């Protein structure tokens, strides 16, 4: 029982080995190269899940099963579980972690195995059960921690891992995030009249809404600099206290979250090399972000949303986009915001229209979601 306090706020927490599973590929490298060539995973679908054709970014199950066969012969996993295991597998293998009780396992998702409810399998749809299944595969020893905090879940998971490690509760951590495209979420977003009738176009004048997607991402967090890909410098997750589905018109929660993250990171806003923003392409979200970034004097900082490549992968999006952000920082690349043409927000923001090279020391990842939640994390290059 550890009731003893250990305050070590200055202890550095790093991201280490990571991997992402998306329709564009099952490795970070593979994905990044596709992004550089401007490839999008969004395609048109027509099936019983929706009363009309829709656009989504969906992982091919044949390819997934083929890749999964290389790590396990057990076929009793759901699509989401296979994605999460494939995401974690190289991160675990390369981590050198002892996988003991002081290794945290954090799983982030919005809906997990929600499709199990179609067969009335409530047990299977339980998020703790999903976490136990994944933890069992890798023989993680600690009690799994599940985060389900709408669309900020993925990036919040990284912030939570960092805090738990800094407080001394854990020495290292594995964070995995994943969500699927399902009839459940498609019908829900459709009932909100929030679905785009074309591949989504974040920040563009003619944007009409969200394109959904599916992905999994995993990251190892460590205190050892030799394993590090980036340093997590500061974070904040502050609520709008405004509306349960609509974002704040003033971007208050996002503003406060970024302010909190920058304060902890102790860097001024002009040092940020780029912003990996949320950019769902709904009229209100993108406008809210533009307002918040201007209030923070971040209007001139190059910014993109990756939703034009992957769609909105819900609880996976924040972690997926952070992994790509780290790769972009280390390779010195500004990735274009896919689907962007003519600016369609009232405040000035610097949306990246073309891929470009740049020296990047820091980047900011943000996300916002239902329930008025927001998360911001500042990453820095390992020097």
């Amino acid at each position: 029982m550890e009731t003893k306090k250990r305050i070590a706020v200055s202890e550095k927490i790093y991201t280490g080995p990571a991997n992402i599973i998306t329709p564009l590929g099952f490795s970070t490298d593979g994905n990044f190269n596709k992004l550089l060539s401007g490839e999008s995973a969004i395609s048109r679908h027509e099936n019983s899940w929706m009363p009309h054709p829709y656009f989504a970014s969906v992982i091919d199950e044949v390819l997934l099963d083929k890749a999964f066969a290389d790590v396990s012969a057990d076929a009793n996993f759901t699509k989401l579980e296979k994605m999460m295991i494939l995401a974690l597998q190289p991160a675990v293998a390369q981590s050198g972690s002892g996988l003991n009780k002081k290794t945290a396992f954090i799983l982030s998702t919005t809906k997990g195995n929600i499709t199990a409810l179609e067969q009335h399998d409530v047990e299977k749809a339980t998020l703790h059960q999903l976490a136990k299944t994944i933890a069992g595969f890798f023989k993680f020893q600690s009690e799994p921690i599940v985060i389900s905090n709408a669309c900020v879940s993925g990036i919040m998971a990284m912030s939570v891992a960092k805090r738990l490690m800094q407080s001394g509760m854990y020495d290292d951590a594995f964070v995995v995030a994943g969500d699927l495209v399902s009839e459940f979420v498609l019908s829900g977003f459709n009932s909100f009249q929030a679905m785009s009738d074309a591949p989504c176009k974040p920040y563009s004048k003619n944007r009409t809404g969200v394109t959904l997607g599916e992905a999994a991402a995993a990251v190892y967090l460590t205190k050892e600099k030799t394993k590090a890909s980036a340093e997590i410098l500061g974070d904040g997750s502050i609520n709008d206290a405004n509306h349960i589905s609509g974002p704040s018109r003033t971007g208050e929660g996002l503003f406060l979250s970024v302010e909190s993250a920058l304060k902890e990171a102790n860097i001024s806003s002009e040092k940020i090399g780029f912003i990996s923003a949320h950019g769902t392409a709904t009229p209100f979200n993108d406008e809210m972000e533009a307002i918040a970034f201007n209030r923070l004097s971040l209007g001139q900082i190059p910014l993109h949303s990756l939703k034009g490549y992957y769609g909105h992968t819900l609880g996976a999006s924040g972690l997926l986009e952070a992994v790509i952000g780290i790769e972009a920082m280390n390779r010195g690349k500004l990735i274009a915001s896919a689907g962007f043409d003519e600016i369609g927000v009232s405040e000035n923001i610097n949306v990246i229209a073309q891929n470009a090279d740049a020296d990047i020391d820091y980047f900011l990842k943000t996300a916002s979601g239902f329930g008025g939640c927001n998360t911001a994390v500042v990453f820095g290059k390992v020097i």
Partner: protein
Amino acid sequence: MEALKQELKEKIIAVLNLEDITPADIANDAPLFGEGLSLDSIDALELIVLLDKDYGIKLTDPKEGKAIFQSIDTMADYVTTHRTK
């Protein structure tokens, strides 16, 4: 028309969970949004579902709802001319 207006009020109260409000509290020409019933954007989307479910009217643009859901009067007019069931 009066019967339809009464029916709409009852349905709105039920669908939007307007506790402690009776049909008599809703004037035919009073604004549904803004002050008064203090309905919000999710309520507007729920009313779109109501039109579809009970009257067979499909609205695909939420902006259309603004004019239709101004008051019970405007809603009843719209339902009368567009209903398919």
